[in-house]
C-alpha cells in the first residue's frame, strides 16, 4: 500500500512546486474584533517534512489551519501552498492540498464507502477513479470491513481515521491536519500515528497542529511553539528540548497528607517546583539533581526522574503549562 500511495501521490502539487518550501506563511494575521487570533506568524514547511504547530487551545492553531485551507479569510500576510497564493486563488489550493479539519465532518446520511466515494467525486475524480481510490484508502486504514456501515456506528478512533483517509482521496502531496488525534484513546492515537508515519514515508508533506507533547515529539521533524497567536520559537524537537528544557525533571507523586511537608521542604531550600494535579515537578539546577534526599523517608511521596521534554520547553518559553488551555 505504501507503494501505491507513493505512485498515486504524484499530483500537480509536485509539478507546481518547483523546488523550495511546500508551505510558506509570512506575517500572517487574523483579527476577531480587537483580538489578534493569529498575530503575524511566519514559517515554512519543506517537501516531505512533517511540521507541527504546538500550543494550548486558543493559541491560534486552528485559525491558522483554517486560513491555510481557505476556510477563513486573513487580515494580512501571505500564504503560499505548492507555489499557489492561497489568498488569491484558494480554489486552486484546495485542488492540491488535503485537509483534515478539527471535526471529522463525516456525512451521517451516507455509508463509510459513500463518504469517501462522493468526496472524491466532488474533489474532481472520475466515478471509477474515486471508487478505486476509496477502496485503496479503506484498505490502508483497515476500514474495508466497515465500508457499508453508517459513519455514526464507528468508534471515535475509526471516525478520525476515516476523516484522515478522506483527505487522502485525491492523493495530495501536502496535507494539513488540525489536531489529528485529539480526543482519541491511547490505542487509537497510536494507530493514527502509525498511519501518519507511513504517509510521511510515502513523501507526503504534513502540517499538523497539536497540543499533545507526545504527538509533536513522535511525528514532527520540526515544530513551532505557538501561544496567544504568536510563534515563540521554532526548531527540531531535540533542538527545542536542548535549548529550553532542563536535562532532567524530578517528579514527586505526593499523597494529599504529605503535600504540606513537601512544599515546606522545597521552599526552605529555595528549590523551584510546580504542581500539576497530584504531581510535583522539580527541575534540576544547571543539570544537577536537586537534593531531595530529605523527602525519601516521608510517607506518601514517591520520587522518579525523567528527561526534559517539549512540555518543559513550553513551560520555559511561556511560563505556562501546555495543558492549561
Amino acid at each position, binding site marked *: 500500500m505504501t507503494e501505491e500511495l507513493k505512485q498515486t501521490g504524484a499530483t500537480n502539487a509536485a509539478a507546481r512546486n518547483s523546488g523550495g518550501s511546500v508551505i510558506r506563511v509570512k506575517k500572517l494575521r487574523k483579527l476577531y474584533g480587537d483580538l489578534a487570533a493569529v498575530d503575524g506568524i511566519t514559517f515554512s514547511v519543506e517537501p516531505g517534512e512533517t511540521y507541527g504547530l504546538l500550543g494550548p487551545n486558543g493559541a491560534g492553531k486552528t485559525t491558522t489551519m483554517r486560513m491555510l*485551507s*481557505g*476556510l*477563513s*479569510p*486573513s*487580515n*494580512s*500576510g501571505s500564504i503560499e501552498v505548492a507555489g499557489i497564493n492561497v*489568498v488569491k*486563488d*484558494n*480554489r*486552486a489550493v*484546495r*485542488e492540491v492540498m*488535503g*485537509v483534515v*479539519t478539527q*471535526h*471529522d*465532518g*463525516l*456525512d*451521517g*446520511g*451516507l*455509508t463509510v464507502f*459513500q463518504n469517501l466515494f*462522493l*468526496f472524491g*467525486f*466532488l*474533489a*474532481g475524480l472520475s466515478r471509477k477513479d474515486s471508487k478505486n481510490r476509496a477502496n485503496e484508502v479503506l484498505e490502508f486504514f483497515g476500514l474495508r470491513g466497515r465500508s457499508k456501515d453508517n459513519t455514526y456506528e464507528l468508534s471515535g478512533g475509526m471516525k478520525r481515521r476515516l476523516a484522515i483517509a*478522506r*483527505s487522502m482521496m485525491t492523493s495530495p502531496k501536502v496535507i494539513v491536519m488540525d489536531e489529528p488525534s485529539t480526543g482519541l484513546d491511547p490505542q487509537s492515537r497510536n494507530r493514527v500515528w502509525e498511519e501518519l508515519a507511513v504517509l510521511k514515508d510515502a513523501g507526503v508533506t504534513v502540517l499538523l497542529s497539536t497540543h499533545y507533547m507526545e504527538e509533536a515529539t513522535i511525528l514532527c521533524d520540526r515544530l513551532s511553539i505557538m501561544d496567544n497567536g504568536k510563534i515563540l520559537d521554532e526548531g527540531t524537537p531535540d533542538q527545542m528540548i536542548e535549548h529550553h528544557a532542563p536535562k532532567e525533571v524530578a517528579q514527586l507523586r505526593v499523597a494529599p497528607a504529605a503535600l504540606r511537608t513537601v512544599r515546606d521542604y522545597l521552599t526552605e531550600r529555595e528549590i523551584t517546583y510546580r504542581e500539576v494535579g497530584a504531581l510535583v515537578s522539580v527541575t534540576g539546577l544547571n543539570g544537577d539533581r536537586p537534593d531531595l534526599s530529605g523527602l525519601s523517608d516521608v510517607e506518601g511521596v514517591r520520587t522518579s526522574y525523567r528527561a526534559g521534554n517539549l512540555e518543559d520547553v513550553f513551560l520555559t518559553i511561556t511560563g505556562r503549562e501546555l495543558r492549561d488551555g
Partner: protein
Amino acid sequence: MNLAIPTPGIRRRSVTGLWLRHAVSFVRYWKFVLTWVLIEPVIILVAVGFGVGKLVGTMDDGVSYAQFVTPGLIIGNAMFHALFETSWNAYNRIDNDVYETALTTPITILEITMGDILWAVTRSILTVVGTAIVAALFGWLNHWEAIGMIIPAIMVGITFGALGFLFSAVAPHTTFLTLVFTLVASPMFFFSGSFFPISILPDWVEPIAWAMPLTSAVHIGRGFALASLDITHLWAALYLIAVTAVLWPIAVFLLRRKLIS
C-alpha cells in the same frame, strides 16, 4: 481583507457532486422519503378533494372543487419539499460540518447553494409528478396542459430553495427553524389560493396574498392544470424570478458568513 472576494467562476463538478450526494442519500432512505414525496400529499389530496369537495360542490366555470384544489395542493406541497431541503436538511449539514468537509474540495459557497437548490428542484419535480399522476387517476387533472406543472415545480424548487437558506444560515438552533413553518410555509400554504380563490379575501388582504411567492406559483400551476393560461401567468412567473433574484444572493451572503469566518 484578504479572501474577501469570492472565488470567481462556476465549477460544474461542484454542483453535480453535491447533487449526487443528495441523490445517493435519498435512495438510501427511499422508504422514508416515499411517505413525504407521495403518501402524505395524496392523503391530503384525498381528504380535501373528496371530503371538502363534497361540501363545496362546483366552483365558477363549472370546475369541480377537487379540480380546483388539486394544483394548489400539489404546488403547495412542493414548496414544503424545497423549503425543508435547504432549511432543516441544510442546517444539519452545517451543524455536522458536512459543508465544511465539502469546502476542503475546490467548491465555493455559491456552488453549494446551486447544488442544494438543484436538489430542492429535483425533490419538487418528483413530488409534483408523483402526486399529479395520482390526481389524474382520480380524474382531477383532465387537461394535457397539466404536464406543464413541471414549470412551476422547477420555479418553486428554486425560489423556496433559496428562501430556506435564509433560515439555515442564521439559525442558532433547530428550534429557530420551526419559524420556517410557522411564519413562512403554513401561512403561505393556506393563503396563497391553494384552497380558495384569493378574490374572496377582503380587498386589503389580497395584495398581501399576491406578495407571497407561493401565490404566483399556485396561480401558474392552476393555469396549466385547468388549461386556462393567460398573460397573468407570465407576470406571476416574472414575479417569482424577481423574488429569487433577490433571495439567492442574500442566501449566498448569509451562508458565506456562516461557513467562512
